[in-house]
């Protein structure tokens, strides 16, 4: 069945499936799909080695729109399905698409274990802070007091933060972007694709039908610079119009404080410098509360650790070294006796 595939020549067109895209017109998912389609041909991975796995929800329709292998599974379970796929064939490039409900409510347990195992898969979590496909109920990332169809008097649940969840569970790559971020999203996806291990990307996504403008202050061009902290490795943490603000370590609270860089004539000497390998910095950045502080975008944390597949391979190698024969040997192991022919 081997066929020479000219992976270098693959284009976006090769990855676009013939299925009609059935998201609502104007949905943030379109922007994410187009960014993904830009990245896939660059990765030099044969088309047949991609598998897109999803659970249930608007975001989980994603695999139908990419012309690779795809598995639209059941609610919340995509990480478990992906685990089986990778255990059967570790060479595959497996991408998960999930949402705030699918990934953090019904499937939170599986996502947690995916992170701690460091399974070599890419996890794209579309966070729109609402249940869309079931027509507007509050999700685990909805703000406290959110009024929805299932919470007419406001919800009583405090929200979970996807990034802090991922860091807390030991994810080795944690990043954030948003649906209409264009080049930024493409860049984050590219980084995620190149990471060995679980790469988690939270993508802020607008559901204009049931939760419109949930991230408006962050994504709107006029307020973006004041509210986005664009992370770049080795660069100081600055933001705001003309980079007039920066973030510094507050030794008194082991927290982060805002600095007005205009006072120091734009000097960034005392500001924190982004270090993707620091789990403590990542936690600090993830804990910044909006709107008092900006929302960090980009790669918050990246660390190289053996993947789950590496561990399985190691166990296989060990087992083969100490192997005691094949199937027939197994069947006749233990205490046996021979009954002679009469």
């Amino acid at each position: 069945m081997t066929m020479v595939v000219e992976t270098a020549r693959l284009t976006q067109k090769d990855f676009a499936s013939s299925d009609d895209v059935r998201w609502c017109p104007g949905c943030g998912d379109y922007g994410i799909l187009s960014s993904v389609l830009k990245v896939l041909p660059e990765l030099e991975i044969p088309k047949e080695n991609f598998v897109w796995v999803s659970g249930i929800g608007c975001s989980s329709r994603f695999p139908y729109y990419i012309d690779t292998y795809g598995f639209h599974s059941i609610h919340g379970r995509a990480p478990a399905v992906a685990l089986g796929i990778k255990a059967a064939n570790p060479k595959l490039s497996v991408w998960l698409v999930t949402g705030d409900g699918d990934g953090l409510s019904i499937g939170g347990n599986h996502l947690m274990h995916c992170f701690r195992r460091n399974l070599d898969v890419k996890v794209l979590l579309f966070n729109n802070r609402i249940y869309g496909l079931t027509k507007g109920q509050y999700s685990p990332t909805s703000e406290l007091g959110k009024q929805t169809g299932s919470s007419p008097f406001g919800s009583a649940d405090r929200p979970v933060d996807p990034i802090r969840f991922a860091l807390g569970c030991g994810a080795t790559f944690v990043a954030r972007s948003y649906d209409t971020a264009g080049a930024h999203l493409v860049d984050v996806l590219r980084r995620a694709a190149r990471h060995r291990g679980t790469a988690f990307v939270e993508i802020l996504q607008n559901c204009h039908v049931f939760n419109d403008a949930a991230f408006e202050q962050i994504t709107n061009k006029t307020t973006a610079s004041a509210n986005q902290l664009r992370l770049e490795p080795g660069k100081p943490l600055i933001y705001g119009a003309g980079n007039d603000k920066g973030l510094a370590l507050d030794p008194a609270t082991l927290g982060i404080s805002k600095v007005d860089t205009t006072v120091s004539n734009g000097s960034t000497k005392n500001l924190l410098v982004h270090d993707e390998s620091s789990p403590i910095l990542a936690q600090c950045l993830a804990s910044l509360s909006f709107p008092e502080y900006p929302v960090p975008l980009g790669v918050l944390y990246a660390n190289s650790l053996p993947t789950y597949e590496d561990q399985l391979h190691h166990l296989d190698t060990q087992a083969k070294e100490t192997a005691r024969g094949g199937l027939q040997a197994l069947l006749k192991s233990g205490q046996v006796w021979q009954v002679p022919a009469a």
Partner: protein
Amino acid sequence: MQNESEVPSNKPEIIVNGAVIRFAGDSGDGVQLTGQRFSSAVALAGNDVATLPDFPSEIRAPAGTLYGVSGYQLQFASKDVYTPGDSLDVLVALNAAALQTNLSDLKPGGLLVVDSGALGAAQLKKAGYATNPLEDGSLSGYQVAAIDISTLTRKAVTPVGLSTKEAGRCKNFWTLGLIFSIYDRSLDTTLSFIAQQFKKKPQFAEGNSIALKAGYAFGAASELFHQRYRIAAAPRNPGLYRNIDGNTALSYGLIAGSVCAGRHLVLGAYPITPASAILQELSKHRHLGVTAIQAEDEIAAACLALGAAYAGAVGICCTSGPGMALKTEAIGLAVATELPMVIVDVQRAGPSTGLPTKPEQSDLYLAVHGRNGEAPVCVLAPATPAECFTVAYDAVRIAIRHMTPVIILSDAYLAHGAEPWLVPDVDQLAKFEQIALPPIEQFTPMLRNDVTLARPWASPGTPGYEHRIGGLEKDYVTGQISVDPLNHERMVQTRAEKIARIADDMPECRIEVGASQGKLLVIGWGSTYGSIREAVEQLHAKGVSVGHLHLRGLCPFPRGLEAIMSAFGRVLVAELNSGQLAQLLRAKFCLDIKSFTKIQGKPIRTDELMDRILKESEDYS
């Protein structure tokens, strides 16, 4: 008698056909190990043997309590045996609670071996005895051998340097030695087992070996036992044999299936009694292409098995009732995506947590119907521990050939029960027929095989066959999402027809034993095989018009079932639930089917079934 430790005995030897023995004691007394070693030794000596381990779900219940009693019963004979026996020829009671809870099963005049060293005032009180049964005459109907096993064991092993507590733990091997001497068995295989088992703890190896020999010597010399019994080897087909329990046989069958299919086996499992032993067994054999993953929960276990199946491996999960309940949605997805997957349900008594270590056949409805929507799957059930191998192998074969999930219904009794097994020749196993993918230009994910209706198994990594699949309804032709009403009806009917056609791939129904037509047909499935077979065999030999049919296929039913049922005046289904198979058969065949049920967490006894068979055949005539 090849071992120098075995004192030659001049006691008279009596030839008997077989015996039923039960070892009973505290759950920390090593009773299960004693029973396993005894069954292994008699099997090695050529007897047929059937076993019934019966233990509490507490790991080590408080010492001396009634609920903490663990038992291991076995029947061994010079002919084929199918059950562990109804009543006991020998009861070995290692404490007062074991005596209290097990004595009623001992035959009148049967041999009672009791550890008098474990019948102190406190222990008797805890077991509910007002007076010492050794002294109050309540045991006068039995042949009583009251031996201070605790003290004798301690004295025997003291020279090895074990502490009093450690020495006490050699009591089970002392007892085993004693019973070996009564039944005239060699100690060789047990001594080599001890050497192997306690390789890293030489003191324990020595202590247990000494205890075993001391118990043997005591039995040979003691006046308590006037004779020894000889049970000749059972006639057998020639070949290589070993003793095997159901969970091990099932694991081997799954491995054999995947090896013969030339595919990796990926197991997803979450520990649960009584299925954990399958997870542990499969974890040992990575070199045979087995990847066993302990998942975060039952749902993940099923989903990862399904993911593995999608990616071209043999996807397996093993669980018990509560886990089955959690897996239902994933099994439904396997039905919708038509992927091969084997789900093993080692049934235990329910509902909910129920009786975790006790057998029941109460997940039949769950296996056949327990999913949302119409989601038919193939359901198979092994009848004996050794048959778990062939059924597991067949389950893998059917899953792949028919592109369907297959559920295997085992139970706690099959899981832990053991019997001699003719080791199969790998080259003689049924060959796998795997259908090649259609040419790329003809491919759709739902392009069905004309014979089986199976769809092509195109796995990721195969160029040119990229496709999307999922739980949404698919177009019959293209496999793409479809909400067309008539298409849905056609797909539901096609999935049902696909399962129905599996009957073509199963052996036809046949009578196991007894009449092939006449008054009464007794139908069973799963672990009740032995009791039904013995009951029918005995009564048929006495002239009762009765036959036994045992179903391995529960969905679909095998061919020929209706014809056999119609050859009898009456049909009785015997099962360990409230009549689930009886109900399925009534629904399918519109027959007035009678039901014999037992829901006590215990196997059916041969005698109770015989009573019912007699009643049914008398009523009928």
